[in-house]
């Protein structure tokens, strides 16, 4: 009997599969398709202090084995999320949810995290210091150890629940940023957010997305995500969530061997609405194929020796 359970910052997950923020809305679209309680948990749409429409459209560009999005943190704002989205979510999801938070100032982060930390349904806060879509916004926090640590420290000061910092891959030395966040009290690190990418329309000779550049995700970025997870997992003591191009049970196992305690699935949800349910279904067979009885046992298995 395959044991898929893992413990993420003191909360046990039935399995390590977590839909990534921005690819799963607040859960309902998918709850109409399958019982989302099969998930380990999910990270809801990036939430900010104020409501945001986000970037102008078009916001989507296709790539080989991936896509670029420049949604730009569209969300109803933290108050509405708490008053409207979470109660609705309670009807279809009975596990702790991961609250994904973005901001444009330390105060923003503190304001939103403090409110979400008090919500019964919220199990973890995932603090996004890395969204590449907001000019001069979240990006700056994620590209400097000091800024990332400052956000971490401020958020930790107002939260009782585990705080996971989601890092940007668009940096020279992601390990130093992860270490700074751990030093500042982060309970976990999730990586990677999207790579900054671009496509140009040959007919119009203009960038495909109105914002010109956007976040590149999908199977194409998996090798970069895996490398960074491997580097960070070796350096930090806190749990690491592996994110980036995961689209199969094998990818989940590979991420965990690299050092991930849990794994987020992003772009795959957009092209395959049942992707996460299917990955969870396929995990036991994949575990047997690779002689794994408990997923806990393989976390970081490729790091030593």
């Amino acid at each position, binding site marked *: 009997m395959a044991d898929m359970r893992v413990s993420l910052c003191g909360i046990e997950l039935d399995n390590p599969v977590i839909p990534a923020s*921005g*690819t*799963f*809305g607040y859960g309902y*679209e*998918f709850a*109409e*398709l399958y019982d989302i309680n099969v998930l380990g948990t999910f990270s809801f*749409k990036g939430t900010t202090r104020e409501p945001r*429409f*986000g970037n102008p*459209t*078009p*916001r*989507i*560009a*296709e*790539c*080989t*084995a*991936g*896509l670029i*999005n420049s*949604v730009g943190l*569209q969300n109803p704002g933290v108050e509405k999320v708490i008053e409207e989205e979470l109660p609705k979510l309670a009807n279809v999801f009975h596990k702790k949810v991961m609250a994904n938070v973005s901001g444009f100032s330390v105060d923003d982060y503190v304001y939103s995290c403090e409110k979400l930390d008090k919500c019964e349904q919220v199990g973890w806060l995932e603090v996004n210091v890395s969204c590449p879509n907001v000019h001069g916004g979240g990006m700056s926090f994620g590209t400097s150890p000091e800024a990332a640590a400052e956000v971490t420290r401020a958020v930790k000061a107002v939260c009782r629940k585990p705080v996971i910092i989601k890092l940007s891959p668009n940096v020279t030395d992601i390990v130093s940023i992860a270490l700074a966040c751990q030093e500042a009290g982060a309970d976990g690190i999730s990586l990677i957010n999207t790579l900054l990418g671009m496509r140009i329309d040959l007919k119009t000779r203009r960038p*495909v997305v109105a914002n010109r550049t956007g976040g590149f995700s*999908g199977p194409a970025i998996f090798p970069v995500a895996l490398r960074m997870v491997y580097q960070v997992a070796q350096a930090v003591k806190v749990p690491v969530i592996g994110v980036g191009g995961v689209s199969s049970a094998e990818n989940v196992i590979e991420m965990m061997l690299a050092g991930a305690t849990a794994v987020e699935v992003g*772009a795959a*949800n*957009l*092209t395959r*609405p*049942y992707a996460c349910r299917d990955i969870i279904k396929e995990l036991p067979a994949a575990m047997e194929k690779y002689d794994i009885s408990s997923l806990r046992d393989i976390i970081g298995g490729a790091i030593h020796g």
Partner: protein
Amino acid sequence: MRQGIFQIIENLPLARDIMSLRLGGDTGAIVRPGQFVNIQVEDCFLRRPLSVCDWDGDSLTVVYRIAGRGTELLAKMKNGSLDVLTGLGNGFNTALSGDRPLLIGGGLGFTPLYALAKNLIKEGKKVQVILGFASKEQAVYVDKFKALGCEVTVCTEDGSLGLKGYVTRAMEGLDYSHFYTCGPEAMFKAVSDCSLTSGQFSFEQRMGCGFGACMGCSCETLYGVKRICKEGPVLMKEEIKWRT
């Protein structure tokens, strides 16, 4: 929304770069004209969203233009099966049509209007249709609309068929109870301006998922933000915020 495997019944050219694809499979999720399907094309990461032009219990038809890599690959598929999401989007509201609805299609914009016309005719409405095309060569589906019993006016930009000019020219002096339109966004503002009644616009936008998960296709309306793939693609004239 429903995910299903559909068999390719036929995938034939109607005109230069315009293809008609008929798929066999479970169409149970399609409940209104104006809804769309999202087709996974091999070797493309994203699905291709296409308006349903016509459907029955076990088959559906989409008409598409060969415009890029995805549609080029799709046009090459003469048999086999496709992974398709069906029943996407809100579709047209036929309850608002009144007795003499006007349907206005620009280019391939006629596709969702065909299923709509079928529906309205069945409901006993007097359906007037304006179809605008670049030229005679592009003017497809005209006879099919006529065969349904619609009163059809054709306009072409070059005058090679029907009235010379844009669809708005054909709208002048027409008497109608409500209108439904689909076509290039450039046409929408003009149609809205010269329209005498309320109406419904079917929008297009680049989509990541097509079922409301990614917020890639959002647009601002006078009544808040809507996702073209979920609360759309059909918006009411009264709620549209025109880009100035």
